[in-house]
């Protein structure tokens, strides 16, 4: 007989079982029978449960843990100065937390910080203090009026105003955008225009400054009131404190309005887009002016061009005319030369052919030829000369006889 334990078995996972069916009811009855649970056991039962539904989107927005030692050690009597959002694990959501998120976060905080649980782990009893703060935070944040008061002075939601030198546009938007996003929480009017960037239009930028220069804030400063003594015996003192509180609130409100208005003025003065819009405007003006003057400039240029063109045309015309004249002259000379040549050819035709054997009548023949040449116009001269060109002897005489017959002159030799 023997038993040997060799290893531990793999850790289990806590899951909710489905509360249906007879076997579940048997389980419930068995578990319930004669059993009472401490608050601690009940809280433990809700922890580390593997749930199958997608992890609640809200949970992701809550703080992972609430364990800032300073927060945990905060004096519960001074709870009003505590970061109530952080106490519930809502330090990321703050003013944006919805009531249902607050309920959920509170539940989670209670699970983590219930005094039953802490004392069981040997924590000292005065850790109850933080649990009290959790409860106060829950009460405050679930009451819309109280929450507004707290939100008004929740400087953990503030974004630091840039102090260093801003060297480029991107830096400007990165530094100031979040400041305005944070200030926007105080606006009565929603949505609030955001700072935008280099791509914002002029209208958008103007709208932005218009909105912020007329900011309508719900911010109040009651939360910082000095406690009003509730002891009725000293009414005067009570009234005095109340009055003091009222004045303090008013002053803080005025200061805050001025703070914001100064801030907006400063940003407006530094806004690279405003500078750019101004430069653009100047450039635009210059451009307009230039455009306006464009008419006159164009006319002048046109006139100049016209004159130049005219001069050019004239010169060209003159050159052409000169050319023509020379050509005409040349043509005339050529014609004259041709005429001379033809006349000579006709005149020499008899002599070159030995006067057709009638050398004795040479003088008469020459006279006849002269008469014929005189009677010919330029065309006829050319015609006859060309006919004579390739003929000799009697053939030439024959040509001349024919021409003489045509001429109807009374000639001595040619008939």
């Amino acid at each position, binding site marked *: 007989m*023997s038993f*040997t334990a060799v290893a531990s078995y*793999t850790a289990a996972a806590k899951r909710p079982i489905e509360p249906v069916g007879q076997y*579940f009811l*048997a389980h419930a009855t068995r578990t319930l029978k004669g059993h009472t649970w401490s608050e601690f056991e*009940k809280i433990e039962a809700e922890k580390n449960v593997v749930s199958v539904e997608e992890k609640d989107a809200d949970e992701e927005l809550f703080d992972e843990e609430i364990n800032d030692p300073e927060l945990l050690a905060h004096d519960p009597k001074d709870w009003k100065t505590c970061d109530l959002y952080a106490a519930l694990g809502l330090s990321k959501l703050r003013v944006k937390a919805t009531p249902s998120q607050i309920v959920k976060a509170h539940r989670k905080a209670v699970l983590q910080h219930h005094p039953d649980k802490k004392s069981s782990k040997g924590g000292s009893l005065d850790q109850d203090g933080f649990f009290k703060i959790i409860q106060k935070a829950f009460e405050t944040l679930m009451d819309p009026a109280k929450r507004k008061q707290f939100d008004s002075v929740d400087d953990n939601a503030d974004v630091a105003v840039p102090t260093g030198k801003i060297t480029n546009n991107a830096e400007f938007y990165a530094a100031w955008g979040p400041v305005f996003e944070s200030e926007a929480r105080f606006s009565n009017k929603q949505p609030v225009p955001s700072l935008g960037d280099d791509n914002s239009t002029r209208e958008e930028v103007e709208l932005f400054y218009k909105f912020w220069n007329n900011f309508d804030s719900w911010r109040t400063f009651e939360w910082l009131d000095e406690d009003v003594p509730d002891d009725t015996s000293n009414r005067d003192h009570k009234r005095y404190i109340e009055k003091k509180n009222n004045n303090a609130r008013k002053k803080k409100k005025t200061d805050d309005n001025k703070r914001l208005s100064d801030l907006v003025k400063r940003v407006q003065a530094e806004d690279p887009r405003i500078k750019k819009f101004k430069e653009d405007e100047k450039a635009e003006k210059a451009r307009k002016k230039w455009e306006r003057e464009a008419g006159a400039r164009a006319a002048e240029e046109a006139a100049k061009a016209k004159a130049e063109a005219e001069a050019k045309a004239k010169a060209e015309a003159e050159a052409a005319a000169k050319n023509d004249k020379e050509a005409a002259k040349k043509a005339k000379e050529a014609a004259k030369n041709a005429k001379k040549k033809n006349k000579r050819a006709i005149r020499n035709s008899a002599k070159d052919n030995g006067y057709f054997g009638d050398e004795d009548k040479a003088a008469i023949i020459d006279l006849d030829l002269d008469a014929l040449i005189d009677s010919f116009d330029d065309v006829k001269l050319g015609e006859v000369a060309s006919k004579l060109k390739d003929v000799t002897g009697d053939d030439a005489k024959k040509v001349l006889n024919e021409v003489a017959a045509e001429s109807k002159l009374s000639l001595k030799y040619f008939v």
Partner: protein
Amino acid sequence: MATIGIAFGNSTTSFATIKDGKVDVIANPDGERFISSTLSYVDGDEYHGQQALAQVIRSPRSTIVNFRDFIGVPFEEINSEYSKYAAHPIELNGKVGYEINGNKISVNEVVKRHLKQIKNAAEDYLGQEIESVVLTVPTNFNEIQKCELIKISNDAGLKVKQLINEPTSALLAHLSNKNQLLEDKIYVVADFGGIRSDAAVVSVRGGIMTLLSTEHSNKLGGIELDEALIDFFASDFQKKFKADAKKTEKSYSKLSAASNITKKTLSNIQTANVSVDSLAEGFDYMSSINRLRFELVGRKVFSEMTQFVENVVKKAGLETLDIDSVLLVGGTSNIPKVANTLSLIFPESTEIFAPAIDSKLPNPNELNCRGAAIQASLIANFDDEEIKESLQPIIINTEHLQVPIGIKDLDGNFLTILSKETAYPIKKQISFESNSDNVEIEFYEGKRSIKETVVEPEQYSDEEEDSEEEEPEIIREVEYLPGTLLAKMSLNGVGSGKNVDVIIQIDREGKMHLTGRSGDVVVKGEITQA
């Protein structure tokens, strides 16, 4: 005084009671068992169910449909797509409302009137007053939605004894019907409804059910199949008459109603007609479609359903091989193609419960209300305080084993005694016959492994023309092998052929008590959790 179970869906509501030990799904006076979750206000009368749905064509803006998921949801978060052809949701104090014939009505009021109609129908049928109800809700209904629903139902005169999750309700109905509650199995419960689909992986261990994963889709459901059919018929109509059947809201709604009927008919028979008088531009439409064509028209939707089921299995950290059974739920699960395509992603050993595979099963659309009725009868004698006590986190939130625990059997195989995901405290016993005088028992954690078996293809006769060389098929199965050795015990002098009992018990604190026993020989020991 009776107790009933109600499954209140966006598309339909059904309810059941237990009569003579049997579940009885109740019909309304019009004989409907799946009552359309629709209200319509025409000429000063309130219509409900199918009668109300019929008004969508004539009076769309006076007819309210698909409103259940609007309960307890801020107006800006709702998806009103499925109210396009009916009354449009409006914002009413940040929540959802409707404006019907000039009167504003909140969604809570709509739900209340709907539940009142259900109550009246149930009382009519049963001849007695309804005292209380068990209602089903999707697993992703949040606390606010649940509180609202309880409040509204109470206002409607139906006192809510318990809200239970839809998939577990369906599974409870199925397992009770089959008397299989005590068989340890991993189930996929896939509910394909009208405008949404939901699936869950559920482990059933010793009659206790645990959700291992869930999946939801608002873009998958019967309405997508209706739309596929509408498109198909509309293009046929266009071809025949050169007229657009989808142009006016009225013609669209007419075709939609007809397509829905055709779709349902095709779940039962191979060919269905569609006929719409004066569909558009004065033309009557008449045509028919067979099941094959419908499956082609809806193939995108069917493949999304498969993907959807694969997702829920993956979310549970499992493979389809690990799933023992699939239970199909919801109206759309009547379609044979749904079961057929799903069976392709599971091994042959996985059982699929759907009417297309086993015609003797109840209508998948009844399962939710059947489970609710069973639960209602189980808790009928519990008072509110007792129910509240049973639902405390300390009862519900339970430790679950993450690996199976068992022994090595005489052949050296791992024999599961407690399956993975068994909730404890638990006690379970198995028995075997000894084969020697001294018996050694070794307790192990089971190690998951995949067994691959090669199955040679069947030789087909060469009648088939181009019957290519068939690849041998590899069948994969999950099996558990002895993993970490947890403990050993030896029982001396038992005698061969004697009965040996092995008992594993895990107490509330997680301590595991191991016992081996044969006659007077008893060995005990315990091990701890890591």
